């Protein structure tokens, strides 16, 4: 017998060994068990225990044999009056059951007419793919059972003369001639909550038009697949080419007739017709668009994007219906946010998708009741300062693509002029005054602003009055060169300043001035804005944009050096935002490459929120290159690297990341 000490040691060890032994035993047994179930190579088992793959393969090859045999036994059912009843051949039916989508098969239940409706709408498939021909069984004149292959159209025509009469009407409603009117008459209701979604879903499942509606996304899908296949075909004369070409044409026609929001709605409905949860998921997730529609979040978070999407004029107000329509498109086609409005308001491209924007805006704090255009300013410091000021003191602005740049320049110019920092805004229009034999120059702000006498239109009008003895009431109009047409009556007289939309920013904007159809070349534009955003020398500190803003709007720039400080600062107050400057190549390494040592393109940005996901901390950031309504998630490490790299190139080694604290 072992001594108590050794007994104790033994039981201690056993305590650990037992579970280990058990695990080994279980895995060994399961290994043995698996070995007995595993088929040896070349071993086949027929019947119930055959693998689905093998069953399908065997069925497909047999199906091909049968259809080739029956090719000679085609039948025109409408011609033979002796045929009273026709059914789908059981083997063909098995093929349909094996190859059709389960979600559509579930709709059949006990309704024979629903089956024919699905067949009519191309929602069922057989081993040969989409069904164009049907294998049928029928009794001939001698009461013998026969099998033949018939066209699907003939088969359905035969059926609809004897039963399921409504199907024929529905089929007519959803042909290419009538589909547009049919769709316009149907209400595609967006669910608001779980209960209403359940009701809507069940209503759709019982809707007699369902198969006709699901035909739409399937036609588009077939067409896309056919397009890929057709590009690989060599011969354009083959039967296959003609078949695929028809699919492509059907798709193109369908896409022209059906609005994108309906396409997206039907895509979600038909893909999830057997899954209520998945259908509702799209509409019930926590998205910013729903929160704006429910007035839980400010409208400006959505209205500008929605306006761009619907191409609605700025003078017209957006209705709740418009917002709901936009939400439907944002939810169903999230990639659309990458490109909408990109041509009118130049900014970093592509923008984030709608889902990312929605997630970011839920956590964002920046007030953005305006829409600027960074690519038309070409000075990231000015763009960023305008955004900070509009957050602190929002005002009504001209948000049209034509007027957005003027508003940004106006903010910056008045900030510096009021602070008596005229060096920051040296923009002048000059002309040679013959009588005085001198060049006279006047400061101006580009564009048209009816509230300001520094507005370019006002300054140019004053000069033209002196140069051309024009009447005192003269006003100059600011327009794109594509809009100016001296043939038009209202362009024949007056003053017009024209510019090329694609070639006009603060750096470079060649303009033409016309008075009574004659171009005036005597005016010269000079100067580009000059200011540091954060000071880089002690001398520049007083007139740096950050300092001027803090003095004018009465806030302090509180330095934030690390992530906990950033999170704490943002969480302290819903109005807190952080502005900073870093190297563009570190913030956006996918967009901008470093090619040499100390390469750094300064880029101001605003951080107004944060989010944690998968262990990463993201900061909701809008750099001065981004569209204001398209914030991005940037990993904190990239922001830190960007600000660090920027610090190195600063003479004073200043850490350029500050919280704006009132």
């Amino acid at each position, binding site marked *: 017998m072992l001594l108590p000490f050794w007994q104790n040691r033994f039981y201690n060890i056993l305590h650990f060994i037992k579970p280990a032994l058990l695990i080994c035993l279980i895995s060994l047994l399961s290994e043995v068990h698996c070995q007995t179930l595993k088929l040896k190579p070349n071993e086949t088992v027929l019947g119930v225990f055959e693998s689905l793959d093998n069953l399908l393969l065997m069925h497909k090859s047999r199906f091909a044999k049968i259809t080739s045999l029956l090719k000679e036994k085609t039948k025109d059912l409408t011609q033979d009056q002796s045929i009273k009843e026709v059914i789908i051949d059981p083997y063909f039916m098995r093929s349909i059951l094996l190859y059709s989508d389960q979600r559509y098969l579930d709709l059949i239940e006990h309704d024979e007419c629903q089956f024919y409706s699905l067949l009519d709408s191309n929602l069922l498939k057989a081993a040969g793919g989409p069904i164009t021909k049907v294998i049928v069984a029928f009794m001939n004149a001698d009461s013998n059972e026969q099998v033949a292959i018939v066209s699907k159209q003939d088969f359905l025509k035969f059926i609809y003369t004897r039963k399921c009469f409504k199907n024929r009407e529905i089929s007519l409603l959803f042909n290419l001639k009538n589909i547009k009117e049919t769709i316009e008459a149907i209400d595609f209701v967006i669910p608001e909550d779980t209960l209403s979604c359940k009701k809507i879903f069940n209503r759709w499942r019982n809707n007699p038009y369902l198969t006709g509606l699901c035909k739409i996304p399937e036609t588009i899908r077939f067409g896309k697949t056919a397009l890929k296949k057709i590009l690989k075909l060599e011969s354009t004369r083959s039967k296959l080419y003609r078949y695929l070409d028809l699919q492509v044409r059907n798709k193109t026609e369908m896409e022209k007739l059906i609005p994108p929001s309906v396409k997206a709605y039907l895509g979600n409905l038909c893909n999830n017709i057997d899954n209520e949860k998945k259908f509702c998921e799209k509409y019930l997730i926590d998205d910013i668009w729903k929160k704006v529609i429910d007035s839980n979040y400010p409208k400006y978070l959505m209205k500008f994007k929605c306006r761009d999407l619907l191409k609605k004029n700025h003078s017209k107000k957006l209705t709740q219906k418009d917002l709901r329509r936009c939400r439907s498109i944002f939810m169903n086609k999230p990639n659309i946010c990458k490109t909408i409005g990109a041509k009118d308001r130049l900014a970093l*491209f592509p923008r984030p998708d709608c889902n990312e924007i929605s997630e970011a805006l839920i956590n964002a704090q920046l007030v953005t009741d305006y829409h600027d255009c960074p*690519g038309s300013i070409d000075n990231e410091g000015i763009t960023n300062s305008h955004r900070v000021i509009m957050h602190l003191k929002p005002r009504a602005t001209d948000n049209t693509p034509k007027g957005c740049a003027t508003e940004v320049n106006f903010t910056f110019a008045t900030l510096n002029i009021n602070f008596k920092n005229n060096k920051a805004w040296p923009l002048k229009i000059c002309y040679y005054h013959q009588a005085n034999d001198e060049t006279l120059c006047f400061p101006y702000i580009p564009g048209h602003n009816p509230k300001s006498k520094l507005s370019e239109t006002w300054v140019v009008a004053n000069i033209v009055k002196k140069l051309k003895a024009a009447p005192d009431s003269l006003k100059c109009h600011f327009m794109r060169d594509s809009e100016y047409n001296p043939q038009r009556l209202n362009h024949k007289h007056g003053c017009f300043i024209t510019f090329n939309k694609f070639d006009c920013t603060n750096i470079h904007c060649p303009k033409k001035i016309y008075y009574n159809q004659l171009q005036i070349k005597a005016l010269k534009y000079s100067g580009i804005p000059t200011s540091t955003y954060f000071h880089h020398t002690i001398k520049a500190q007083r007139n740096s944009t950050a300092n001027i803003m803090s003095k004018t709007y009465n806030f302090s720039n509180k330095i934030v050096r690390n992530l906990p400080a950033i999170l704490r600062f943002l969480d302290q107050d819903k109005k807190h935002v952080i502005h900073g400057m870093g190297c563009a190549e570190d913030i956006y390494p996918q967009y901008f490459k470093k090619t040499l040592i100390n390469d750094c393109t300064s880029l101001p940005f605003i951080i107004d929120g944060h989010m944690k996901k998968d262990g990463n901390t993201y900061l909701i950031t809008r750099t001065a290159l981004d569209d204001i309504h398209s914030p991005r998630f940037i990993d904190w490490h990239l922001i830190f690297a960007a600000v660090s*790299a920027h610090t190195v190139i600063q003479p004073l080694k200043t850490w350029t990341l500050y919280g704006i604290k009132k």
Partner: protein
Amino acid sequence: MALKSKFFLIIYLTTFISSIKVHGYNTSRLPVLVTKQSIQHLRLVTIDGKFTYYQQQSTGKLLLSTNYSVDPVLQASAGTNYRLISSPTRRKILISMNERFFDFIGFRLPKKIYEIDFGKSTPMQIGEGLFPMIHLEDHWASFYNAQSRILTFKGIINRASKFQVKLVNVVNPYFIPQRVMLSDNKVVYTDVNKEGLQGVITFERSVKKTDVLKKQTSVSTKIELCLSNGKLFIGEFGLGNQDLGSTISYYVVKKDDTLVGPQLIYKSKKNDIGNIKCQAEQDMLYFVQNQRLDSGLNRSEVVSLNLAKKYEIKTLSDLRFASQIVNMDGRLLIPYLEKYYILLGKNNLADDSFVNKKSIKK
């Protein structure tokens, strides 16, 4: 010490050590570049460390230091920032001068561009634009004007040669075209069409003909070009948080400038950062790969792709957030958090010995 105090000390130390890692002060096994002077002033240091171009922000000067003598290269207002670009041929250097670096933050502001003989200090202005590049064994330079969307190619040995290509791009104002010259007559560059899709275009100067070599199907994919040893490498990388994948393929450049291919050499399901470097070493490609973990934790490292070893991929860095690679006269560096980590080349910039005439390759 009481047990409670020990416990809190351990907690504090653990937190402190992990917070260092969180803020990115990683220790790496890669050597850190050591220089004689403050690294922030350096603009180009040759592989042998004998020629150093550096700037003085306080005076706005660009200077050349060699053999204990210092020569001025360019002079502008205080705060001027210089960018220097060289190639493996080591015959010419391009200099981009930004006099408004601190007082006009404009990504698209054109800068004055100069060319200079390698190791010399007499510049000559060749134009104004952005992101200059050297091509065809330093016979040509190219630069881009983002406002007019014109890509200019200018001869820097035969200075009379010049031609321009206008880009279609109207949707992305901050798009910088990638470009390579296959010969005096044929260039390959990237452009963006009206739908925002990037593509690779070939342009034949003699017949003024353009052709589309490749076109993307998604706006969220970018293209990179790199030419080396008769091969044109094309990298296609997804942008944004949605994984679209990445590929690198190459075309063989024949003697008559025709391109044969593509041959796929790399594929990934994730959106790599890219930033391909192909001229540092024969048969080796370097780029930044997305190595995000299965848990979703972000990670990106510099990897090499060995063309001679069945396109073997090897991770070279251990910084977790490596995002750029810089080629400074054959020395490959990773800039990361105020340091430069050496991937390729010697750490010999602190060497004080004299240069001999053989150092300058003709």
